[in-house]
């Protein structure tokens, strides 16, 4: 990775907000006008910056082959994201990036693919899911298990139905049973062994809370999936995004420059983000 911003490593570029979509009460989708020479791949992220508030790492949820804009899915979780939530179309967000590595999806050509998402973990995976649908004939069976806490927290609901029509075996699940939900119940890990994909040769792409990622990776490996085929993208506290500030440093690896996409094999070898 090379720094392309000649004005400096830490100077964000302004990107105008074309549209803001309320996905749930505390999650908004921002569609930003793509700055020139911004070329990205699924799995990469940007540092979203607001002068006076600060910077936070946010994964890109759009797919460059399909979407005109850069789309960021932002949950109101702290000081900076609360400030970002106050922005309206026409305002600008500073972005630095794209940063980090990408999902090695070419490795999965000809194989079955299982996506496992928990909560807002669907955001980075959405970028890849849309690309996989675009290149549908390169892959075998495709399945998605997407778990949320409650029905109101399900993101991209209309789009998931669209994915289903495009031949994705979709399992939408809610943690606790409730009446207004017509799909499955229980944690995502309870649904893994019900999938009809080939675990021995298939690939899995996982994103969600730490606990879910660890449990899902462990279960998949017990089902016979090779550790190199279990791929996840992890979250970390970051201040710079370019391997200098040290906040995401874990056992010799920087999540921002060596990741955020890691295989289970790497995570086990280096002990990355395994509390």
């Amino acid at each position, binding site marked *: *990775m090379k720094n392309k911003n000649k004005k400096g490593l*830490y100077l964000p570029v302004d990107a105008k907000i074309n549209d803001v979509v309320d996905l749930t009460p505390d999650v908004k989708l921002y569609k930003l006008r793509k700055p020139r020479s911004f070329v990205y791949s699924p799995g990469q992220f940007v540092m979203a910056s607001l002068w*006076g508030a600060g910077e936070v790492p946010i994964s890109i949820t759009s797919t460059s082959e399909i979407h005109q804009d850069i789309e960021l899915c932002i*949950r109101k*979780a702290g000081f900076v994201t609360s400030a970002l939530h106050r922005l309206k179309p026409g305002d600008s967000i500073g972005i630095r990036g794209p940063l980090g590595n990408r999902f090695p999806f070419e490795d999965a050509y000809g194989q079955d693919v299982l996506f496992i998402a928990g909560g807002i973990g669907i955001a980075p995976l959405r970028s890849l899911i849309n690309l996989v649908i675009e290149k549908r004939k390169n892959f075998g069976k495709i399945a998605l298990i997407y778990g949320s806490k409650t029905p109101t927290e399900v993101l991209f609901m209309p789009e998931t139905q669209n994915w289903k029509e495009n031949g994705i075996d979709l399992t939408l699940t809610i943690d606790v049973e409730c009446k207004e939900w017509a799909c499955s119940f229980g944690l995502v890990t309870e649904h893994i062994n019900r999938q009809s994909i080939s675990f021995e040769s298939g690939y899995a792409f996982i994103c969600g809370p730490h606990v879910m990622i660890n449990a899902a990776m462990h279960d998949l490996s017990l089902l016979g999936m090779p550790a190199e085929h279990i791929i996840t993208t992890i979250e*970390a506290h970051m201040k710079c995004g370019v391997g200098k500030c040290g*906040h995401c*440093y874990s056992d010799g690896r920087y999540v921002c420059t060596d990741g955020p996409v890691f295989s289970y094999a790497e995570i086990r070898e280096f002990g990355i983000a395994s509390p």
Partner: protein
Amino acid sequence: MKNEFVLSRTNLPYWLRQLRKKADLIGPSRSLNGDIIFSSIVNIHEMILDCPASIPSPKEFLFPQKEEMYKFSQKGVRNLNDKTKRIIFGVRSCDISAIALLDRFYGGLLEDDFYMSRRRNTCFISITCNNPDPTCFCSGLGTGPVLKTGFDLQLTDLGDRYLVQAGSREGLRMINGFRHLFLLPEKADYDDQYEVLLSSQSIFEKRITLENVRQKILDGKVTDSFWESVACRCFECGGCVYECPLCTCFNVIDWKEKDNKGTRLRLWDTCMFKGFTKMAGNVLPAGKKIMRTRRWYFHKLIHYPEQFGRFGCVGCGRCTITCPGRIDMATIANKLD
């Protein structure tokens, strides 16, 4: 091209006064409370050249404890790259070795422009250590007391004169304007330098090579219970990190004034603090103290050599001076060796 000279002791103040005309001259002096600090030198005779290690290390002139990065307002954003010309005089060999490694860390493909703009405008004149502190162990690591590269100029105190070695073009430039002050060295000067080196080597109280420690860790001979015993002595004060010439972590904050004006700052941060890795939802990847203390040692002993081929420790002994729990690098290395 000659790059070794002899400077008479009586000519040193004059030479420094001339250099000061073109750049801010920084050197070690004693602060009011007795610490050795690097600061702008007003009176050249106040500089102390046979002093103990400065606290903090001279890394603060390249990577300051608090650095203003950008000023922002309604009108736009201004980059605050520091381009002040500085000459830092009397830097120890261990600190020069640390800066050589910092250059590689902050440089490279992802170049930190704030560090590099300071670095390109700073010259270092180092001094061969002739009285190492009881806490020093650079001789075992090859990062001192005398250096072959890394400095712009290196001075060795030979009593009534200094042997001056130039290690870069900037170093030669500082001599070339004042060639009438510098003589060419003779055999006796080199002999005296060797004497200084030998006597300096004999003063070192600690003989530590970190290679054995690294090998033991890699072989899995260092148990979790050992790191537990280290962690339980850690006060989480962050002193080791702040004083270490090779610790590079920072935090970025926005300081907002009225009318949407403000400054984006970066400040030293330390991985010893519990909140260092805290994420949204209060997830703490390094929540236990043992993880944080072990990570600091692993970074310096295992990962620095993997990435740069050098230890993340130059044996300056500052953590030994600072650590209230006596779990500094030298103590741990002695225990594991």
